[in-house]
Structure formats: C-alpha cells, structure tokens
C-alpha cells in the first residue's frame, strides 16, 4: 500500500508561516553567522605532477608547516585552517578546473599556492569569474602588469621584473656588459627576456643573443652553439624536470674556457650542488630569492622557518640530505599564508560573503617587517598592483656552497605602477 503525499492548503499555510517565522528570527540569523568551529578552507593549487613537481612537493611541505603553526597559535579568527590540496599537473587548463572545483565543490574561502606562470595566467580568469580570492606564489610579472584581475594577488613573493632590475647593476659592474640569455620559452622566461634586456641596457650593457628553450626539452647541447664567442656574461634561467641536465651540459660545452656565468637559482632548484658534473659552477653567481645555505648572519626567523619546514642548513630535507628544497621560492607559501591570516583578521572574515572585504583588507597592507611571518626579509606590498616588493640576494658558489655576496635594497626592485586594481569593480 502506498501513502499518497498530498499537501492540503491548511498544512501548506502552516508550514509557510513557520518558515517565515524562522527565517525572520534575528536570533537564528545571528547564530548561523556566529563563530563556529568550522575550519577556514584554503584551496591549495599544487603542482604535484608535471614539470613543476619538485616545487609542488616543497610548496606542500612549507604550506603544511605554516598551517600547523597558525593552527597551534589558535587559527584564524579562532577557527582552524584546513588545506585542501588539488593537483593541477602544472597544466593551465587543469589549473582553471582546480580553481572552479575549489569554489564550487569544496566551498573554499580562498585559493592559493600556484607557482608556474602559465598556470597562473590560465587559472586567474576562473578565480575572477568565481569571485574567489586567489593568492599566487608565482614570481611572474603578470599580476603587477595588470593582465589579471582584482581577485588575484601576489603578496608573498616578488616578481621577475623587480628581481632582474635589481640584478642588472651588479651584473654590469662585476661580471660584464655583453650578455647572452638562455631562458625557458614561456611567460616566465619571457619576463626574464624582456625585463633583464631593458635593465642591462639601462646600465649601458647589451644582450647579444636571446636563446629560448622549450620548457619540456630534455637535451640542451644543441642550443649552446648559438652563444656568441664575445659573450662576457652568460645569463641562464631554466625550469622543468631536466634542469640538472641543462646545467651539466652547459659545463660540458664550455669546458675550461667559459664566460662569467650568472644564473637564476631556478636552474638548480631542488638539485644538489654537489651533483657530479656541476664542479664548473665554482665561482659563478646566482640570484637567490632566499639563501639556500644558512649564512653566517642567519636571522632567528630563518632558523625557525627551517626548523618548522624540516630543512637543514644546506637547504635539504632533515630526513634525507639528497632531497634538496626549492628554498629560493617556497618561503612565498609561508609568507602568503601569514598574509591571508592577517588579512582575514583585519577584515573580520566570517565566510565567503566576506571575500571582498578580505581583498580590500589585503590591498590596504603596506609594510611588512622581517619576522617569523616574513623570514625571507622585509617587504612592501603595493595594494594597487597587488604585488609585493622585497630584498633580493646574490650568491657565489664557494667550495660547493652558495655564499651570499650581495643583498639589494627594496628600492632597487621598485618600478612605476602599471595598473591600479583597486579601481576595478568586484
């Protein structure tokens, strides 16, 4: 026997009345939005696989360490932080899907953590559409260039334009003025090409040759004959799974007669400097976002940061000395999470309806002291361009270790604003 479900007019009226009463009750409304123990969900767009996998692994460890610390100290606004990590395969298309998943499926409060510039560029429009605050840790100039949107911010790591601009004077003064550049052939490499070329020309130098290498390339010797013979400085920056091959083949190509070599540590992130075949790097220079080897003047902040993430004084995992970190970049995750915390606290963030307030609170930030929350160094955040500026380091390889030889000022890295995101509507 089946019971027929039929709503009589009387019960309908009763229910509607009860519903209206509940909905209009001020008490209930207050209760629903009051502090709950529900966690703040941060969607972590992680490069677990694909060409960014080594970075993804260390970005993951840094993120976990920072979240543990934040939760131990009481979380954000009294609520625990939960990281929801999704692999984007270091792929722009999947990146956009991951961002949509964060917004619609996981109901994340914010998204965070993307490194590779092409993934950021591919994912940012999705974050804008979903109105999901998107805190990237990428270095690319695309945030500050105005190419993205109001929901995308980069408060925890500096961008390539400011980095190379601060490097050019040192390169021109100490290494030489005729430069040949080797860089990966995608957005990040193009930032290097465009901005370093301009910066070295401003120092009276010139770039003799631009050599672009596809980021998925596995053999490199064929590119090196294009290096002109009168090159004084070879400028290299490379990413992807084959970086060790790249640097090794560079050494094999030059043998004993190489020009001065200045590289971005990206070419050797997650690679042991003591790997066989890298001996020729002795005496060459590297940009470092954060010195991999603990320096003589190490701050207590750096010490605490290393201990929390599990990195030894050589920049490798404390549990496996051959597992070298991406030390020059991963601090960005740590600092960004602390900025999200600061932003949510100053905005009184309660839930997704406060996302705009969070963006405005972050835009209002400016100076950030060197501290346990900012172990890499002091920073200045520009709320208009959504980009942080900070000190940069130059290190020289001495006895197989990277030794810091120069620290730029923050002013060295500044350039005029190219966009004002605060004028864009939400």
């Amino acid at each position, binding site marked *: 026997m089946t019971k027929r479900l039929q709503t009589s007019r009387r019960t309908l009226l009763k229910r509607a009345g009860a519903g209206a009463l509940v909905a209009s009750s001020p008490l209930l409304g207050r209760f629903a939005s009051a502090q709950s123990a529900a966690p703040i969900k941060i969607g972590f767009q992680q490069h*677990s*696989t*694909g060409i960014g*996998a*080594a970075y*993804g*692994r260390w970005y993951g460890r840094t993120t976990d360490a920072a979240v543990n610390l934040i939760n131990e100290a009481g979380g954000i606004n009294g609520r625990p932080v939960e990281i929801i990590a999704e692999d984007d395969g270091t792929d722009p298309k999947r990146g956009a899907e991951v961002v949509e998943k964060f917004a619609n499926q996981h109901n994340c409060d914010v998204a965070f953590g993307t490194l590779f510039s092409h993934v950021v560029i591919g994912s940012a429009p999705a974050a804008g559409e979903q109105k999901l605050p998107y805190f990237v840790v990428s270095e690319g100039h695309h945030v500050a260039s105005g190419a993205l949107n109001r929901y995308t911010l980069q408060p925890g790591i500096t961008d390539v334009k400011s980095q190379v601009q601060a490097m050019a004077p040192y390169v021109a003064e100490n290494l030489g003025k005729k430069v040949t550049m080797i860089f990966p052939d995608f957005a990040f490499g193009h930032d290097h090409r465009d901005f370093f070329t301009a910066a070295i020309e401003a120092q009276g130098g010139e770039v003799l040759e631009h050599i672009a290498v*596809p980021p998925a*390339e*596995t*053999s490199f*010797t*064929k590119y*090196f*004959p*294009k*290096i002109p*013979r009168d090159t004084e400085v070879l400028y290299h920056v490379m990413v992807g*799974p*084959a970086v*060790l*091959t790249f640097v090794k083949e560079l050494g*094999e*190509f*030059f*043998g004993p*007669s190489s020009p001065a070599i200045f590289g971005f540590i990206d070419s050797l992130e*997650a690679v042991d400097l003591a*790997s*066989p*075949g890298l001996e020729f790097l002795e005496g060459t220079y590297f940009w470092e976002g954060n010195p991999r080897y603990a320096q003589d003047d190490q701050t207590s902040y750096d010490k605490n940061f290393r201990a929390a993430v599990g990195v030894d004084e050589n920049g490798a995992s404390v549990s496996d000395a051959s597992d070298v970190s991406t030390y020059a970049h991963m601090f960005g995750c740590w600092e960004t999470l602390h900025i999200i915390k600061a932003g949510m606290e100053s905005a009184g963030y309660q839930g997704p309806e406060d996302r705009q307030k969070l963006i405005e609170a972050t835009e209002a930030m400016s100076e950030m002291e060197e501290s346990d929350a900012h172990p890499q160094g002091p920073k200045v955040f520009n709320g208009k361009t959504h980009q942080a500026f900070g000190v940069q380091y130059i290190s020289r390889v001495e006895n197989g270790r990277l030794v810091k030889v120069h620290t730029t000022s923050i002013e060295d890295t500044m350039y005029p604003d190219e966009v004002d995101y605060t004028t864009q509507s939400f």
Partner: protein
Amino acid sequence: MDFGPHLILAILEGAVGASVLALTALGLSLVFGVMRVVNVAHGEFFMLGAVIAWFVATTIAGHPAVGFLAALVIAPLIAGGIAVVVDRLVLKQVTYDPEATIVGTIGVLYILQQSALMIYGPEARPVEPPFSHRIALPWIEWGENGLGFYFPWGLSTTSYKLFVIVAAITILLTFWLVMSRTRIGLIMRATQLDRETALAFGIPVQRVYSIVFGFGAALAALAAVLIVPIQQAHYLMGHDPLLLSFIVVIIGGLGSVRGTVVAALLIGMSDGIISVFLSPTLSKIIATLLVALVLVFRPQGLYGKKMA
C-alpha cells in the same frame, strides 16, 4: 661558432639521438613485424627501463659503473618480463585483434605511467654515468703556418656519449646476428612470414609472440638505460620516444629491420642538425611532414614490402 665545428657538434648530438632512437624503434618494429600488433605502450617500456635503472643504480653501492652495468642487465629483464605478462593478460585475451590491441595497449600505457608516478614519484632523477670525461675535439684550419690543429670553443663531447653510440651499434649488430643466424631468429622470421604455416610446422606461435613482445620491450628499456645518465629518469619520458619511434617505423617500413635503422639515422641526425642550426620545433615539423609524404607516396615505407 664557426660553421665547421658547429656542424661536427650537431652531427655528434644527432648521432647520440639516432642511436637510442634506432634501438627503441627496432623494438616497436619487431613487435609489429612478427605479431602485427601496434604497441602504443612502447614508450612506457622505455620509461620503465630508465626508472628501473635508477632504482638499481641507487640500490647498488660502490663505483657507479657497477650499478650501471647491473642496470644494463636487470632493467631490460624486468621490462621484458612485464611485457610478457601484458602479452598473456591482455593481448592474448583479445586474440591479437589489430583494433583491440591498440585500445588494450593504450590502457597498458596509462597503467604503467601512473604506476610509475605512484611508486617512483614525479621527480626527474639522475643516474650517474659509469664514466664521463669531457673530450675537446680538434679542428683543422689553414692558418699562417699552413695547416694547423686547434681546439675550437665549445666543440666537445663526452666519453659517455661516444660510448652510447658504440654500444648501440654493437646491440644492433647482435640483433641482426640473432635474427639471421640463430634458431630463435629463424623461428621469429618464420612466424612473421606466415603464422599458419609456422603453426603447422610445430612452431609454438603463442610462445614466440610472448618472447617477441618481451624482447621488443627489453630493447626499449635497454635504450633507456643507455640514455638515462645523460637525460634523467622521469615518469613522463616515454612520450617522445614513442612518437619518434612511430615516425621512424612508418618511414622505414613496418617490420623491416634495415628500414628502421636507416630511418632512425635519418630522423635522429636531421633532428640533431636541424635543431642546432635552425630550431627544434622545425625539426619536428619536418619529421612529421616526412611521415605524411611517405604515407602518400610510399605507404609501405622505404624498405617495407607491399602488403597483398
């Protein structure tokens, strides 16, 4: 760089690429020739070879040459063993039907690739070469004092790269001897020529198929062990060798050993030379264009026989 030294460097780079490509493509060609099976998972057996080489080389302590030599034996054996299992579990079950085997091996491709990701991880890891010395190469030039030698800037190779070329030639010759002079080679050729008649003469065709499939995979794995000290092992590294092997096998003629070697030289060398002088993308475009031309004007390939 001057034109002469530049060209020599390009040829050397091309020769290393061509050697490894010849071995990989030979495995693919053998499997197709004997079994009429298009093995889409071939590149993954190449990847397996490299990954196993890394495991072997890191497990065995001592001089890197010991680990490398062990890898040279163990990696092809394991990859071949896995291929035999695949043959029994997948290919035999679909009775070697051409369409079904393509779909089946696509499945195998993903299983192997994702298993490698789960077990080995997403990192690229290096295997130390057994030996590697930088060899600066001389160049002749007509100078003030007549003909003289000098060492141009950047013209160099390593002893290991030369070893790869020599090793590949040795393996190719051995392969040819096995195919033409031994009983197992005779049986394989008989099966290739006419499966039914071979069966009628008491050749255990099913077992031959298993051996051939395993042998093809082992060749790919061997090629990978040779290249891994230069390029590092990575779970996605099977893609390019697969694509290039197909190009080589189509140009050379499916199932023809001679055609495979000639086409591998052609593609490998042109890839080396064109990408040095012009651009790597252009060399891929030309290789693909060559495939299209061969398919239009000589569908059986350079050395292939017309199918009845």
